[in-house]
Structure formats: C-alpha cells, structure tokens
C-alpha cells in the first residue's frame, strides 16, 4: 500500500505491527505512538451526530484509549519478559505486575466515586496521594478564605459556623486517609484472590487475565464495602465534605453586593412551590366537582325525561 493512500489509522496499525514484530524477534523496537496520542491528533469528528453525542463519543474514546494503552503496555512488558528469560516469569510476578499497572488507574476511579472530582481537579492521572494533596490544599484555601473575611460582613451566626469549619475539614481528611487504607487493602485482597484463582484457572489470554483481575477486584471491593466500618468512613467523608460545601456557600453569600441572598432566593422558590401545590389541588377539586356535576345532570335528565315506554306501562316502572 502506498503511504499517501493510507489513513492515519492504517499508518498507526503499520507502526504497531513493526513494533511488535521487532519485539517478538528480540530486535530493537522502533518508536511507536500510543492510542491516546493518536486520538488526540485525530479527534473524533462527525457531520452526522449532534454536538452532545460527538462530545460523548470523544469522551468515550478518550477513556477507551487510556485503558487500551494500559493493556498494550502491559502486553509489551510481558513480551519483553517472555523474550528475555522464559524461566523467570510466573504467576506471582504476573500478579505483582498487574497490581502495579492498575494501582493508579483504580485509585483514580476510587477517588472519583467519592464525588471528590466535583470539587477538586488534580492534574493528569492522579494517584491517591495527589488526591490527598489536592484535598489538603483545598481545605487550607478555604480556611484562609474564612480567616480573611472582614468582621463587618460576617454575621454572628456565620462566625459560629466558621468555628466548626476546621473540625469538618479534619473529619474529611481523616475519613479520606481511612478510605485510602481501605483501598490499599482492597488491592492487596485482589492480588491474593487472583493468585488463588490463577492456580486453578491459568489465563487463556492477557484479556482473560484482566477479566479475572476485574472479578477479583469486584469481589474484594464488595466484601470491603459491605463492612459497617467502610460504610461509616464513606459516610463520614461524604457528610463532612457536604458540611464544608455548605459552609463555603454561606461564606460566599453576596451580602455586600446587594444581590438577593441564597436564603431569600430559596424562600421565594418555596413560596412559588406552595402556590403551585395550591393551584394543583384546586384544579383537581374543580375537576372532581365538574365530574360530579355531569353525573348529577345526567341523573336529573333521566328523572325528568318523559318515559319512552308505551302508555300504560309508565306507572309500573
């Protein structure tokens, strides 16, 4: 195939083929770009899908590319090992390799599931330590923000709330650390489960191995989540985070700017809702009364209409 007829994806496949052939034969491997780079250079474009679906596809392809590269890098590492020394590779090193490979990715997902990502956005593919640092920085910033407020714009009620601020911050941080420890144990248990499973069911392929790892992770994760301790830490983290957001909202109330306060806004929404409910109830009552009226009218018409039966039978009815 001539190069100018090739699509970017054909070229990428060709590069990959060359890379893997070199790897397989123990030759120096040529440079090769990963799938994430390819997707960045050739982003999804479609004239047929609407903006929302196009964005969804781009997001999906980005996520799929992250996992695809993880998979291919692991395969390359395994191929290197297999080629270098056939006798050294065993199930245990494979399990350790997987543990290392998936640690960061799993941690990133673990943190996302605590709704942290709505508040914090550490750069790149953050590990748990980076999440912790981002959380610390966020709490520090809020404390500084609270401390810097001039007394004139902070109501006495809010001053009292600010006292609890540090307490919630500490609770949040403590719960996060405890959840980190949970996560470590889930990962350890995953490796233990996998080792046990592989002894009985050696993987048929690398993809099969990743599926086995997934099963073991879910099992370990589920066991941990069903413990009362985990549920308490999970709740403590989320509740303290909510307390902080609530305090942050109260600190940033636009008192001084003359805009309507959050409290007044909520009050008007509540009032509007109350009226909406009243209107609905009244409409339903009117509909019921109308129905009843129609029924009564029908009955009345039946009572006043002259009997259509032949004369002589009327009096017997």
């Amino acid at each position, binding site marked *: 195939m001539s190069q100018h007829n090739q699509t970017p994806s054909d070229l990428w496949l060709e590069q990959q083929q060359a890379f*893997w052939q070199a790897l397989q034969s123990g030759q120096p491997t040529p440079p090769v770009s990963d799938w994430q780079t390819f997707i960045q250079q050739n982003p999804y474009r*479609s004239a047929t899908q609407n903006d929302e679906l196009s964005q*969804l596809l781009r997001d*999906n392809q980005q996520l799929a590319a992250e996992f*695809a590269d993880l*998979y291919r890098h692991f395969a390359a590492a395994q191929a290197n090992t297999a080629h270098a020394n056939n006798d050294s590779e065993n199930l245990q090193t494979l399990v350790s390799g997987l543990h290392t490979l998936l640690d960061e990715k799993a941690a990133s997902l673990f943190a996302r*599931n605590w709704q942290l990502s709505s508040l914090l956005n550490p750069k790149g593919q953050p590990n748990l330590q980076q999440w912790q640092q981002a959380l610390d920085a966020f709490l520090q910033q809020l404390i500084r923000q609270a401390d810097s407020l001039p007394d004139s714009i902070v109501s006495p009620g809010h001053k009292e709330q600010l006292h609890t601020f540090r307490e919630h911050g500490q609770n949040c941080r403590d719960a996060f650390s405890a959840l980190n420890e949970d996560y470590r144990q889930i990962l350890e248990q995953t490796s233990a489960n996998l080792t046990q499973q592989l002894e009985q069911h050696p993987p048929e*392929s*690398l993809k099969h191995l990743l599926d086995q790892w997934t099963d073991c992770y*879910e099992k370990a994760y589920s066991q941990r989540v069903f413990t009362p301790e985990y549920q308490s830490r999970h709740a403590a983290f989320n509740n303290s985070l909510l307390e902080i957001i609530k305090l942050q909202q109260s600190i940033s109330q636009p008192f001084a700017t003359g805009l309507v306060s959050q409290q007044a806004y909520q009050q008007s929404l509540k009032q509007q809702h109350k009226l909406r409910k009243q209107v609905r109830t009244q409409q339903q009552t009117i509909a019921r009364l109308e129905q009843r009226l129609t029924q009564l009218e029908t009955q009345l018409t039946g009572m006043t209409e002259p009997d259509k039966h032949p004369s002589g039978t009327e009096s017997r009815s």
Partner: protein
Amino acid sequence: MTRPVFTAQQLFTEISQFNQQLTDSYRTLQSLPECTVGPSPKDCIHTEDKLQLYKYRSEVKQSCQTPLLICYALVNRPYMLDLDKQGSFITRLTDSGIPVYLIDWGYPDAADRYLDMDDYINGYLHNCVEQVKHHSGQPKINLLGICQGGCLSLTYTSLFPDNIKNLITMVTPIDFHTPDNMLSHLIQQINVDLMVDTLGNIPGQMLNDAYAALMPMRLSLQKYLNMPAQCSTEQQAANFLRMEKWINDSPDQAGEMFREFVTQFFHNNGFINNSVQVSNQPVSLKQIRQPILNVFGRYDHLVPPAASKALNGLTASDDYQALEIKSGHIGVFVSQKSQQTVAPAISQWLTARDQ
C-alpha cells in the same frame, strides 16, 4: 522450574487483533450515521410543568381494552424502553395489541427544588392516570412501574385503588434493607437532609457516580477494553452509542422528592415497616387487591432479586405472580433474550386479565 504464562507469539497475536479492533471501531464510530433514540411514533396528549404524557401509535388491533400507563423512575430517562426499533420494549407491547401510554418526567431544574412526593403521586401521577382514563374512555387503567417508578406505582395504587385494574412492577425495590443491596448500604449513613439543604437538587452526575461505585472496575476497565470488539460493526456501534447516551443522560433530582424518597424508603424501609406517608396520608400496601405481576432480574446488582421478591404477601392481592428474568437491571428491558420473553409475558398477562 516455572514456565512463562504467555509466549511472545501469543501476546503478539492477541495485541494485533486488539489493535485491529481498535482502529476498526474508530473508523466505524467516525462514519456512523446519525444516532437517534425513541423511534416509535407517539403523540403528546398532556403536559404539566416539565412532564409530558405520551400515547404510542399502533396500527395493530387492540388485544386489550384497558390502557397501560408506564411510570418510569425519576432517575435516568424513559427512552431506554425505546432505544431502537429492533429492540424496543414499547414496540413489542404495542405490536401485541396493548395500548401504551408513558410518562416522561422531564428534567427538573432549580424551580422544581421543592417538588415532593405529594406532588409526584397526588399531582403528576394522578393527573396522568386521569388523562389516560379520559383519552382511552376506560374507567380504569393498567399501571406498570419501573424501578423507583414501581415504588411510586405501588404507592399510587394503594391511595387510588379504584383507578387501577392491574399492576405490574418491574425491577422494583420493595425491601430496601436486604443484606446484598450495596447501594442501600452505602446510603444508610449519608445525611440526606444535609445533602439536599446543601445541594438543592441532586445532580444527575452524582447519581451516575454512585451507580458506577457499585461495580467500579467492571464499569470502567472491562467496559472500555471490550468497547473495540463491541463497536466493530455499524449496528453494534450504534447500539453502544445509544446505550452510552442513555447512561449519561441523567436528570437532576428534585431536592425534596430525593430527601423524602431516601428517608422513607432507603432509610426507613417504608413498605416493609408500613410507614410510608404521602402528605400525611398513610400508605398501606394492604389496600392493593389488584392482580400483580412482579418482574425482576436474577443478576440485578442495583435492585437485588430479594429486594423485589419481598412484595409477595405484602398486598391483599390474591392474584400475585412473580417473573424472574435471567439478566441484570437494564438487561430485563434491552437484552436480546429478555426482549423475547418479557414483553410477550406482560402482554399475555394483561390480556388474560382484561375482562
């Protein structure tokens, strides 16, 4: 001596195949025609605030005179029942002669922050039932509730039993405290008052994150590694994209309704403890004497089978039937196998009780 788990040749073959699937799926998705959902023709017969009530058109002779109203959950969107023509749960029902109506709750926004259970049950749902009765000219309707919509439907039927002829619950949680209900375990100690007071409406994305947290690796690592193989043909890619659109289309939840639902059902297990109330009206499932069909998925991780099965014996119905489907929460509606079982079973069940 240990032996290598994989040979370089094995890995080469596997990765070459994966790379090929990766580029094939990339090309397929790039060239995919416009992906639409909800193909079954329908007419909007009633609107109220953001709610729309639809009647599906059908050219098939009615096998059942009593209309069927579908009450979907407030989370996610009801077009999951009609993703594409081939696999449409709705089409299967209308093709078998069932007159189908569906409530689309819409997308609550800040103005809906204070909508509560009373508004949803005594307001929206009741008004929809009256509209369906009026539109169909029938004195009663059949009501089908899905997931949370099943809880709303049970509550409604116990409050307005005269309006309902037959009741169908699908993947509906009844006992929220079964030991295998992970979502319920995770939410037990969450301060829902604080959550609603702080966030107002509950963001749909937060709910999506909560669902993803139930099987984090299966719904990320495994899903995305399977994606290239699942998108190799145009048909497969379109199905994948439609499902992704649905998964990510998650409306925010009206704050007060969320507070009430979590408190009454997740926290207080209202159906089991007979403690559900709607605007101070007590709700007793013993008011329900209608025939009930309870459909649930054997592998449902969101609403475990035990949570649904608990309905048996809680009502006063002497015609209760359970139907277990070998699939997960969504698979009950969209898996190829279920499609051949579920809608025909519902249709038969309704027709047999249409006297």
